[in-house]
């Protein structure tokens, strides 16, 4: 019963909704005059939001305006507006380049692999943790599995490089101990995606359980008691009571994951990339970084980045629509 001490998240959400409908009813009455008075009365609140507004305007909306250089030949002396238009030239050049399909294949390959392996594991771990009533053991597992979340991506990459080294890495010592040949994980393109995905699983599975555990703590114990009386086994109770309780959280996370398929966190890829594994580690995001910032091909790199962002937005909207049609849950 240790988990039921936390307040139910579902209940809180209900409170918020009730609050807003109550508020809507109240808002129906005031006329324009009252609204104007409200703005004047609360002018200080606009000052509260001002820094955030300026931040988003300068560092997010001005770059959105600046993305037009993808359709221009950007010349720093002429500026963004003054540079000459070239239409879709940069896009055609990208689509016709020999590396286009490799980049697309690697980007999608790594993301889908990550989704298939990384999505179910936090759910399984959360369901298992939820079955444990021994709070010391449960707390230990939670504390330990959450911890890797706080390791920086540089240290994580350093760990991967150190552990997987063919000559000195502990993993290869283990492999040799079992009588196999050492594997050059980071210089073999065939291994790159697996290394990337499994190290990610190690780092983030524990942290990923939090949302599911929150949803599970909202399950009414009476359901379980009734099911026990009816003779349901533990497994049946998980299947019919616990899993339906976390389905909304699952759908939201699935939408977010699919929606960010093209936007995979490339910081780790950039650190683990080397000329030998480039064949399978070259993804759109690292390509944009190299073409844009290292080779200063600003317009071309912006075009590639924009292509990526557009695919991403389309995926997000489509998946959200599907979720809305097939279930009650969606992002908007």
């Amino acid at each position, binding site marked *: 019963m240790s988990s039921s001490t936390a307040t139910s*998240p579902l209940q809180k959400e209900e409170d918020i909704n009730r*609050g807003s409908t109550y*508020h809507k009813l109240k808002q129906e009455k005031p006329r324009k005059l009252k609204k104007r008075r409200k703005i004047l009365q*609360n002018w*200080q*609140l606009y000052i*509260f*939001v001002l*820094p*955030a507004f300026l931040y*988003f305007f300068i*560092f997010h*909306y*001005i770059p*959105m305006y*600046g*993305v037009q*250089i993808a359709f221009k030949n950007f010349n720093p002396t002429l500026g963004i507006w003054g540079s000459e238009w070239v239409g879709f030239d940069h896009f055609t050049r990208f689509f016709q380049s020999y590396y286009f399909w490799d980049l697309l294949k690697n980007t999608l390959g790594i993301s889908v692999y990550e989704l298939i392996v990384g999505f179910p594991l936090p759910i399984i*771990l959360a369901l298992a943790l939820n*079955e*444990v009533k021994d709070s010391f*053991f449960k707390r230990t*597992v939670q504390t*330990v*599995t*959450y*911890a*890797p979340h*706080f390791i*920086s991506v*540089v240290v994580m*990459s*350093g760990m991967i*490089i*150190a*552990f997987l080294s063919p000559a*000195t890495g*502990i993993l290869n*010592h283990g492999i040799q101990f079992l009588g196999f040949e050492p594997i050059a994980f980071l210089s073999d393109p065939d291994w790159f995606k697996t290394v990337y995905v499994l190290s990610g699983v*190690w780092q983030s599975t*524990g*942290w990923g359980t*939090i*949302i599911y555990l929150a*949803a599970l703590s909202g399950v009414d114990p009476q359901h*379980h008691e009734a099911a*026990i009386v009816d003779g349901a086994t*533990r*497994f049946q109770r998980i299947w019919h009571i616990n899993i339906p309780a976390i389905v909304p*959280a699952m759908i*939201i996370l699935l939408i977010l994951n699919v929606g960010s398929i093209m936007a995979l966190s490339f*910081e780790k890829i950039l*650190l683990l990339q080397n000329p030998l594994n480039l064949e399978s580690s070259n993804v759109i995001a690292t390509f944009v970084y190299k073409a844009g*910032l290292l080779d200063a091909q600003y317009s071309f*790199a912006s075009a590639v*980045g924009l292509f*990526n*962002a557009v695919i*991403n*937005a389309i995926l997000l909207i489509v998946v959200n629509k599907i979720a809305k049609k097939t279930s009650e849950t969606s992002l908007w």
Partner: protein
Amino acid sequence: MNTSIHETKTDKMFKVFVYIFLTGALVIVLYPLIYIISASISNPSAVNSGKMWLYPIDITFDGYKLIFENGAIWRGYLNTIFYTALGTFINLAVTIPAAYALSRKDFAGRNLLMGMFVLTMFFSGGLIPTYLVVKNLGLIDTIWAMVLPNAAAVWNIVIARVFFQTAIPKELEEAAIIDGASNFKMFIKIILPLSAPIIAVMALFYGVGHWNGYFNALIYLSDKEMFPLQLVLREILVLQEMSAQNTNLTGSMAEAIHSKQQLAAIIKYGVMIVSTLPIIIVYPFLQRYFVKGVMIGSLKG
């Protein structure tokens, strides 16, 4: 749930299976962490040959000694502390008042503003246009490049807003307004004292982000004097460019270290620990705040 009702055989087996699974997960996550600690204080040749696999062998603190004598690591550490402190302060100054204002139902235009902020989670100009903005503002190679391009995170504003909507009693605000308090006065005298939990959660989320971040420094800084710790670590751990001239080696030790690689081997596990130390120290005490933050976020998600 765990009443004394007789458990069936399958249920017991299931329970055993659950415990085995969780113990497996525990060992898989814990082992690399223990290995790093042991390796950082073992003789490097025992580490590299695989003789050391769990307990430290030939305990030596040479690695840590080299780290403490290394100017680049110290400088990186100080830079990171500075960026983290300044950056987190700016984050809080931007996030908390904005989230509070956006939580107020009588704030006209709040939905429009919130929509404008949330939209940036899904659409952005991308790496290059953002870089050009930072460059045109003249922020390259200044401390501002480390703290302004990430002055706020939408998700954290959403979390803080949910907190203000649910945890601050509306009656308090109404009473303050009737008493004639201005919004500024109310925010400082009434709201902030009640916001300690959310300020802690936000400071932790942002602080860890600054401490662990390397990418902004990679693209916006070229002056090595300004490098944060993570970029110094990148040179040691990933590029393995740790050159002997960076360290003030004393005679006998310099003889013992033949190559850069060997030097990297001695210090690499130590720097992993030293760089993560502040987080390791605060984590056990603050774990519940982190978890709380994620849970508030999941309400809205």
